[in-house]
């Protein structure tokens, strides 16, 4: 039996998971996913709430007004009131973290810092820590595509990075792995094997220059020890551009997508793909 994937990579464990909290629906989905993964991998969980420095700066500006959501009327921003609201959000985020961590029975810590949100969030998850973010934040304009923090994390190459969205689970349901035989693809596959729970199907989307190569890849993977006793489904696509892959993923709708940006696909294509699809993505 071949050993494409070294045994030490069969159980990729995230020792520490950091999740960004801002009380939005995406953030709540991120929190749930982070807690599930923390339980699965027996990792520590850190929740980070960033008090947006831009908000406070804006409040200090002489002409600053906010347009209230339910009145559509502009009102002068009251700095004290703003401080209070932000603290309230932070408390809310902490209590959500406390509740979800309690439900999943994981160790957790909570941190509040003030600064530019993407900078602070990325800085909160150094090195090998898994950073879990919502695909978008609280801004209505970034409902589609990625929010500013996610965009920045992606741009800065933060890995491992899990971008969640509501309606999906990180541990339940099937997984989809992009596999092209590259080192990054091996890493993505190893991670998927670690995350996969028995009973769920692992979908392997094999990307190759030719169909023969793709079949060869499948044959080799079928001999892989780590994949025995796992329900695996193989899918084949030509490795030409990311757009076809995006279309396929949308059609397959098979849950969490695990991929690496060190594949035969260009890094930009991978990033474009992450931006385009409206599914949770784990980038390793």
């Amino acid at each position, binding site marked *: 039996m071949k050993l494409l994937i070294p045994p030490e990579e069969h159980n990729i464990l995230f020792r520490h998971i950091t999740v960004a909290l801002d009380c939005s629906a995406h953030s709540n989905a991120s929190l749930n996913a982070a807690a599930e993964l923390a339980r699965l991998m027996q990792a520590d969980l850190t929740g980070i709430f960033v008090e947006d420095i831009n908000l406070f*700066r804006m409040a200090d500006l002489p002409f600053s007004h906010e347009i209230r959501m339910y009145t559509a009327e502009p009102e002068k921003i009251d700095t004290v009131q703003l401080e209070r609201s932000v603290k309230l959000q932070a408390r809310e985020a902490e209590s959500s973290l406390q509740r979800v961590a309690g439900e999943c029975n994981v160790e957790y810590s909570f941190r509040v810092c003030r600064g530019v949100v993407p900078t602070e969030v990325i800085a909160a998850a150094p090195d090998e820590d898994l950073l879990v973010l919502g695909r978008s934040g609280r801004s209505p304009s970034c409902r589609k595509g990625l929010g500013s923090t996610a965009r920045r994390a992606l741009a800065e190459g933060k890995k491992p990075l899990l971008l969640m969205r509501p309606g999906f689970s990180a541990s339940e349901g099937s997984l989809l792995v992009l596999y092209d035989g590259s080192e990054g693809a091996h890493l993505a596959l190893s991670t998927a094997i670690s995350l996969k729970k028995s009973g769920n199907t692992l979908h392997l989307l094999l990307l190759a220059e030719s169909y023969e190569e793709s079949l060869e890849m499948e044959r080799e993977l079928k001999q892989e020890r780590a994949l025995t006793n796992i329900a695996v489904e193989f899918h084949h696509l030509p490795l030409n551009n990311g757009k076809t892959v995006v279309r396929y993923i949308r059609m397959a709708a098979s849950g969490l997508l695990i991929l690496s940006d060190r594949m035969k696909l260009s890094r930009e294509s991978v990033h474009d793909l992450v931006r385009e699809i409206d599914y949770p993505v784990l980038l390793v």
Partner: protein
Amino acid sequence: MSLPEKLSPEKLYKTCNPGEFSFRSTADLDGPIKATGQERAFEAIAFSMGIKHDGFNLFALGPNGTGKQTAIMQFLATIAPLAPVPSDWCYVNNFKQPRHPGALKLPPGKASTLSRDMEHLVEALLTVIPSAFSSEEYQVEEKNIREKFQEHQAEAFEDLEKKAAEQHIALIRTPAGFAFAPEKNGEVLKPEEFMSLNKKEREAIEKEITNLKSAMQLIMVQIPKWQRETQEKINELNRNIANFAVKPLMAELKNSYASLSEVIEYIETLENDIIENFDQFLEKEPDPREMLLGLPAGKFQQKGALLNRYRINVIVDNSKSEGAPVVYEDKPACQNLVGDIEHISQMGTLLTDFTLIKPGALHRANGGYLLIDARRLLLEPLAYEALKKALRTRQIRIESLAQLYSLVSTVSLEPEPIPLDIKVILIGERQLYYLLNVYDPDFSELFKVAADFEDELPFDGDGKLAYARIISAIAKTDKLRHFDRGAVARVIEQGSRITGDSTKLSAHLQSISDLVREADYYAASAKRKLVKAADVQKAIDARVLRSSRIQEKIREATLKNSILIDTESEKVGQINGLAIYSPGGQSFGHPGRITARIRLGKGEVIDIEREVEMGGPIHSKGVLILSGFLGARFAIDQPLSLSASLVFEQSYSGVEGDSASSAELYALLSALSGVHIRQWFAVTGSVNQFGQVQAIGGVNEKIEGFFDLCNARGLSGKQGVLIPASNVDNLMLRSDVVNAAKKGRFSIYPVTHIDEGIELLTGVPAGVLDKSGNYPPGTVNGMVVAKLKEMAEKIRKFTASSSNDED
């Protein structure tokens, strides 16, 4: 004038000869109890049941226990099965106005089918609708609509954000809304940086931000409109999906009831309601607050609520009926007649809905016959009024009494009235019928037919055979011993004794039934297979004995002379009258001493009982009548110059009735004439102003009461009772009295006129007016006239001397 002879023993008791019967025992007889001699009542029943017009309901009147209900039931049993089976009725939800549940009429047996079909429909919808709404197609469609809204909104914001970014202005989400601020390299300008800008730049930024804010406001104003439009689209989608899911089931249901337009109409409203409220069929998460409160949660609650909302409340189910219904309502309370709206308590609040409408006897009997005991009906508050209202309006309208009288302040219902087509039969005593007739103007409109049941049967062959059949039927129904001919004859004799008329038999079936059961008990005690006459006699004697305590006490007091009754000597102005006592169910007679005293006066007869208000009006009337007789006979030529007083001695509980008026007259004549009255006689009978003696009630008990006292003191052969001759037919005396009469130790004299009586009582001729208009001297009347003359003279002299003294 010839004096009446004492009655022969044969006249004292009418026997029933067992040899007349063709059967050996009642076991030979069969067939149901047939009330004989009730032809008038049967005619009325048949008429009332046959006539189809309004108000021809029936009132069956007669004493209790005369078999009215049995007779009516037997009659209805012959006609009801031939009548058509009435329709089923049910109440259904009125989806537009739940306070007014609708009534649905269905052919017999269809209501329960519809009810079952509806339950199956809800069960099916609980599967069909959730699966339609969980289908991928629906989810995609709904998601698309929502996505469009989100996209619309996001695009608007994105455009604005882009426009702002071009001017280096950031759109920032605040905790409560949105704001714009100048930015540089992705960060909002610090206040000092902003202030370091020149005025023109600051103004340009502020102006731009003002414009952006206006644009933002415009977007936000539109968001509710977009949301509304989105919701409308989703509603439309939901309706389409629900309609698609529900239609096949509904079509199937409509097909089953195609011929019933009302049902089809209801099914259509039901269909609309299901489509409008499809979400109630979708599974919901249980509300933890409701679970805490112990309310049924989740699926069970949902299913229960749906089953209730679309339930068919079957009020009348005639699926197993044959012919028209015959209902006897034992407790005719208002809600038992017209139905009721029940409430359930939930968290201290009383709630109700159309499923809690309960039918009444009128619903069950609709299209048939309803029997009600009139007394019970009148004793129930508002029940009679409710019944009349239903009959008058020809519809059953269920009203909550508590609501009507503000006893409960909660939401109630006003169900649609149900048309009423019924014959109501009230069963009650005569008095009730007459009272209702007089005092209730509606009564004669609504109960136009009276079935007047006889209290008595003729004591003839038919009557006797009817009795034998009744005994046979009771023996069979109650699994008693059968009666031999002698026992039947004895029961018949007792039946005649109950009526107090030797030519009649009692129609009081209850008394006969009781006697039959009691006789069976004694036959069982004697280990006999058939009930004999001796057993019947024992039952009669035992019944008398059981209720004879008071009678015994009174007799005991008389024998001890605590109550003074003379049965041996002769006295002036004193006579033995006879009174009836009726404590409980049994009556007995006992003699009472009546005395009369006279003095000078102005012709008045003082009734002491009336003076002290212990005499009833009939008794007082009797005394005034005898005064009239005295005046007419003796005060034509001269005034009655006397005052007489009459009293029942040792009476402490009042006197009523005129049966002692002849005895009072005899006492008065004795007092006036000074002739002794034989105290070994007792007297009963009323008298009229011509001195004729008239019939009275309870003659048997009165004779027996005097006989018992004489018998206890020892029968001398002289003792006897004077009774009105017109009461001879009523004689059904006890065997010991008859036996004593046979031996000449006790006598009964039938008297027609007061002159006969006074001669029997005194042994002195009464006296008849001679040609000159005088009563012969030495006669009672002659002595009375002489005495009155003497008294008138005394008065005259006294008055004259008094006048002289005054002068």
